[in-house]
């Protein structure tokens, strides 16, 4: 096992990783920018190294400085968290070349998963259900048209290098395709520096279901149930739950089997998430693999009892998984709310001084946050300031607990998405579990009426 790990991140996920290390008896090194000198994650770690100014490109994403920090502190491994360098294949490769263990998938895994069209092709070759789409990047409009005809309209154009909703175009009819293709290419080029675009079937009101997997060095792969991430706003998740109210026990086993097959097909290692789209007729389609620990990993921990960060570390240290598929038990139900420092109507970031901070407590309530009373929310980074997670014996209890915890949560001085979360949890359709990825847009539209 490692003796010292450098945590190449900030905020709640840095603290999350440090806590796991502390519980494993592993020393930790925090890195930080000049804007984060007083942050909790810096104080929580055994050592801390300033790696650059506030701009993340010069600090948290500064590969030479991050690696130097590992070198001068003698850290044997780096946990990248999510975001920043977590899905940077080059970084994972450099880590490997200088003998620092990258806690995550291999650089080859990251590179392949980063090319979504190619990843899908590999998985499809195994005979697994893949979202109907073009076999790879589309070279021109006529290729796009041919692929769209085969798949059937409506279709959606996406950037190969993309994510987060950027560079996407829904096309309902043939005669809209040419213009949309050009626009998508241009946006992909300008946003991601790569104009590659692919195309897939567009579903109305689908659910976003993802399956958590763990894969060790010896080829053992297990899945830990699914997460329903349908509550999104412009592809940004706001609420997640597990189990999904739309997934039966049989469907769960089937999705799990496909996820494990897909992971094996791409020779994936460490923790990963297989994303599926679930249509109204309970058909599911492989979309991609998220090659990192995800923001919403805690809800899986709540229902399985398995500490995913510790498992990531154990796998990276070369240890075999300590359990088999049949050992995994899903107990109860869990929700997560992502509390962002944002104006709840317009979702514009709202940094500032937190004058009052009182997280909720009690049975079945978990808070993952690096906030403290009098914290400063700095404007340079992601606006996620706290993850509120509840667990209950069933969906109803976990939901009632979330409502109670949301009411109890006090954050003063800045605007947050707490009021929106309270609104979601008092919505009748949400309470019944009848949601799709368009739920939130509709809720917000009703609000303004």
């Amino acid at each position, binding site marked *: 096992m490692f003796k010292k790990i450098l945590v190449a991140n900030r905020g709640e996920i840095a603290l999350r990783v440090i806590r796991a290390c502390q519980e494993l008896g592993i020393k930790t090194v925090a890195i930080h920018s000049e804007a984060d000198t007083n942050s909790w994650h810096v*104080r929580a770690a055994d*050592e801390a190294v300033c790696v650059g100014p506030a701009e993340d490109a010069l600090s948290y994403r500064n590969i*030479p400085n991050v690696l130097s920090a590992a070198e001068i502190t003698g850290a044997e491994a780096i946990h990248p968290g999510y975001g920043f360098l977590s899905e940077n294949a080059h970084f994972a490769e450099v880590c490997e070349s200088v003998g620092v263990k990258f806690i995550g998938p291999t650089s080859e895994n990251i590179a392949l998963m980063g090319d979504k069209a190619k990843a899908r092709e590999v998985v499809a070759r195994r005979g697994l259900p893949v979202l109907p789409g073009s076999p790879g990047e589309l070279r021109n409009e006529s290729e796009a048209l041919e692929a769209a005809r085969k798949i059937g309209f409506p279709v959606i154009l996406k950037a190969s290098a993309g994510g987060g909703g950027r560079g996407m175009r829904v096309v309902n009819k043939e005669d809209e395709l040419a213009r949309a293709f050009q626009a998508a290419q241009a946006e992909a080029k300008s946003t991601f520096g790569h104009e590659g675009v692919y195309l897939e079937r567009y579903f109305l009101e689908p659910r976003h279901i993802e399956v958590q997997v763990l894969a060790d060095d010896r080829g053992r792969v297990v899945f830990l149930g699914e997460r329903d991430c349908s509550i999104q706003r412009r592809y940004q998740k706001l609420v997640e739950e597990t189990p999904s109210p739309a997934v039966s026990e049989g469907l769960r086993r089937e999705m799990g089997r496909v996820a494990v097959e897909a992971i094996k097909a791409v020779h994936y290692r460490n923790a990963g998430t297989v994303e599926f789209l679930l249509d109204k007729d309970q058909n599911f389609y492989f979309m991609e693999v998220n090659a990192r620990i995800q923001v919403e990993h805690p809800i899986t921990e709540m229902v399985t009892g398995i500490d995913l960060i510790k498992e990531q570390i154990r796998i990276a240290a070369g240890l075999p998984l300590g359990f088999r598929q049949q050992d995994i038990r899903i107990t109860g139900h869990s929700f997560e709310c992502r509390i962002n420092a944002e104006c709840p109507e317009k979702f514009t970031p709202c940094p500032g001084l937190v004058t009052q901070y009182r997280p909720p407590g009690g049975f079945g309530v978990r808070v993952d946050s690096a906030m403290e009373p009098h914290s400063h929310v700095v404007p340079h980074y992601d606006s996620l300031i706290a993850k509120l997670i509840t667990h209950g014996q069933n969906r109803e209890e976990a939901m009632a607990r979330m409502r109670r915890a949301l009411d109890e949560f006090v954050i003063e001085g800045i605007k947050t998405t707490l009021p929106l979360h309270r609104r979601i949890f008092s919505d009748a359709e949400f309470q019944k579990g009848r949601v799709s990825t368009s739920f939130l847009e509709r809720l917000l539209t009703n609000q303004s009426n």
Partner: protein
Amino acid sequence: MLNDASGDQLAQIQELVDFLKRNNLTELEVEREGFRVRLRHETGARPAVAAAGAADFVSAGPHALAESATIPLPAETAGKVTITSPIVGTFYRSASPDADPYVEEGDLVKKGQVLCIVEAMKLMNEIESEVDGRIVKILAESTKPVEYGQPLFLIDPTPTS
């Protein structure tokens, strides 16, 4: 201060409050010509938390180093230029173990002159002086790690008359 009309006074106290917060002070007392203002601000957990946290926190590594390094007092730095490390790495005062240090305290240096090396990922990065002047103080210890922004040298710049 504080001898104007009351609206101005508040504005002035506000200025002091901002000053207090900006400098992360917990208490500030100002007295002048019969006027006295005292401010207190419970800044939050900073020192308390550090004290209550892991004892290891200040026991090892570059953080401890940064803490214990000779940080010049404000009075000492007035009008002086601090050369900080632009990268994370290991500080060396000379090009090789046998070589003489690039500079000593009291030396006159030219802008662009190499002052030290910070080694990072087996690369030797020469750190140059940003000004003409005299080395007042060397703030880091040779062969020890330095973090980004850590003060390395204090230089008294030559007046550009």
